[in-house]
């Protein structure tokens, strides 16, 4: 079963909040392998986490 980009972005987000099941991880990896838009979204969601953590440390 191929994920859509909409489903992929949801799973990428949930991957930041819970452990994904094996099947979810496989499906996610398959989609990300062929979709640059979703890879960018994943990178940007991870960056958001980093940026918010850095925010508190700004004087």
């Amino acid at each position, binding site marked *: 079963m191929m994920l*859509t*980009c*909409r*489903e992929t*972005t*949801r799973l990428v*987000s*949930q991957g*930041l*909040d*819970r452990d994904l099941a094996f099947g979810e991880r496989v499906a996610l990896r398959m989609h990300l392998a062929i979709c*640059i*838009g*979703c890879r*960018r*979204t994943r*990178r*940007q*969601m991870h*960056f*958001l*986490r*980093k*940026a*918010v*953590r*850095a*925010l*508190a440390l*700004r*004087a």
Partner: protein
Amino acid sequence: MPPAADFRSQIEALRPYLLRFATLQLRDAAAAEDAVQEALLAALAGEAGFAGRANLRTWLTGILKHKIVDAVRRQAREPLIPQETEDGLQDFDALFERNGHWAERPAAWADPDGALEQRQFFRALELCLERLPARTARAFMMREHLGLETPEICKELDVTPTHCWVMLYRARMTLRECLQTTWFGKE
């Protein structure tokens, strides 16, 4: 062990940092001030608990987080502005085609780590955070700023895990769009 007066002044020196930390989550100056005050009182009363710990700021932040969660719990009980029905938010219909694929592929962000060196970037990020609906922002900041796990966030906000994940997803997608427009997509 430093003398008490010294300990007190070290703690006071961290007040601006703590106030900023609390304000990012609570979005309310008075509530943030209260949480910091409670944390500082608890810290002074529990000075012995600090003995031997390396980092005073880390220790104080840990105490403050508990006070912030107490305040969030109080805020969560207050009714929100009725119009703020976040469930009515479009689920990013414009972003995706009906078949679930990108309508317009997201752009790459040039040098995001470089942005973390720029004061202006953090201003842009704060503006994007302020634009989030209150409940969405609350959940997102509990997750990413306070670093709480989703079960605790769901419990404090009295929502199901699924709803929690949806709120966090919406926050991330909205912030991504906002930073694209206001920062990374700018010439």
